[in-house]
């Protein structure tokens, strides 16, 4: 079975994929398709945040004996991403392509630098610290739809 890092990195890629589809549709002015793709994208993002914030971060904090620090910064960046996504949804509803594309550009850079830190540092920590719990945690993650 894949480790936590591998599982989460693969999910980052899935999120990238639906993000790009939504952006492409919005850029083309195909709003019905953009709406559908955006909902798929928002769903994957919510699922990712939930796995991290409610499952993996608490497990890591408990095991390594301190909250705050890296997980705190990650949670804060999740909040920022949620705020940008909220505005993206508004732009979608008003069919404002320029606003949507400016927001999606911002979202992409914010998310990629965030993912880079998770993939370079945090997931490595999880793979080391949570090696024993990994199968149970990943089974729980799979059950989050």
């Amino acid at each position, binding site marked *: 079975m894949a480790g936590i890092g591998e599982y989460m990195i693969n999910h980052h890629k899935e999120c990238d994929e639906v993000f*790009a589809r939504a*952006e492409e549709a919005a*850029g083309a002015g195909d709003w019905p398709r953009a709406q559908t793709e955006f909902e798929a994208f928002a769903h994957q993002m919510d699922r990712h945040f939930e796995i991290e914030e409610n499952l993996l971060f608490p497990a890591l904090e408990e095991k390594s004996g301190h909250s705050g620090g890296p997980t705190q910064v990650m949670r*804060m960046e999740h909040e920022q991403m949620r705020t940008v996504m909220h505005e993206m949804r508004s732009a979608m509803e008003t069919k404002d392509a320029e606003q949507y594309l400016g927001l999606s550009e911002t979202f992409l850079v914010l998310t990629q630098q965030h993912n880079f830190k998770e993939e370079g*540092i945090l997931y490595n920590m999880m793979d080391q610290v949570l090696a024993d719990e990994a199968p149970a945690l990943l089974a729980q993650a799979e059950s989050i739809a």
Partner: protein
Amino acid sequence: MNQSGLKLEQAPPIAVPFQFFLVAPVFLLLVAAVLFASGADALTFRMSSATIAITHLYALGFMAMVMIGAMMQMLPVLQGSPVPQPRATALLTFVGVGLGTLALAGGFLLSQQWLLRAGTVALGAAFLVFIAAVLVCLARAPSRNHSVRAMGLAVASLLVTVVFGVMLAALYGWGVAPLNGSAHSLHPGWGLLGWSGLLVVGVGFELVPMLQLTPLYPKSVARYLGSAVLALLAAWSALLWIDDGRWGALAVACAVAIALAYVLFGVTTIVLQQRRRRRMADVTLDFWRVGMGSLIAASVAWGVRVMWNGPWPESMDLLIGMLMMFGFAGSVIAGMLYKIMPFLAWFHLQSMCALGKLAPNMKKILPDARQRLQFRSHVLALLLLCAAALWPRLFVYPAALALGAAAVLLEMNMITVVRAYRSNFRNMHAQPASTRQPVGIP
């Protein structure tokens, strides 16, 4: 396990990278001015004083300034380890490189040895401070990825470049012949193929897939390309050193292999970008394409040049230099600035926003149309500079004017970002602090 470097919010204040970025186009404008004033003389012999002055104004004032600023920002983010004393390190490096570059170029242009000497000392000291800071940062890093390793290789190459540069400066400034005749080849070789090339390679491995959502670079390329180039550079240098600067068959073979490695990087990058998931028009993507096209052209031409036995026109060397320094490095640098600067402005503003409130997005901070206009001026300048390398009398003035225009437009775009940051910053500080988010910087 090393936990000391695991604070992820350790990037420097926004002023640290921005001071380097904002001064770079000023040096670019100086390059254009000196080119205009020198006319065709600057483009007839690459070892002339005017050409050396222009090359260093560009390589140090423009290229190195941006590269140092970007590294000061990115090292802590990419590897979770802070640059020690970021403000002091940045200030010493900034002032030393800035004034040192002016003195060095002035020394060449005005034939003033004391200026050359002052410039050499300032530059040497500034680079040593920067290199030491980066090495400390690398030693503490909890994260080891391809980019971090490539940055280490780039900085090691910078050190070699500085050492050979000081050797050559001893010749011009103090009349002391270099220890070895190879210094004339090794100084630009390590500067362009080591420090600049490896930094772009290292950053590209991570940022090209991230920004365009392309497939990842093949594992073997990402893993070995940087080290292979460094090993080849070292072998090439040793061979030239042993032969006191004369090119034997093995040195030629090493140089050709280095050229091929860069062709491989350029072609791989273009192919990956063709397969990008994100299909939106993007100025940074276009800058990268121009950059990779120039890199491939320069590498092929240089590979042919080192194998060539007959007489080789000086104009072709100048053309290779234009393609490598402005076409490749200049394009990638400008393209990256258009992502880094609006994002940093946004991120710092966002971290001061009230919860649930959003700072103006990146394209509000710097509109696409303005980036696109500057990109066009950049491409025009590149075409005219290449033409001027081949036909200096005909094209040197149009090239200098186009370069000046590209520099002014770049600076105006940067100022647009700073203005947007400042005006939003002021607005936010008009609201009570209790509603703001905790501050965390990427």
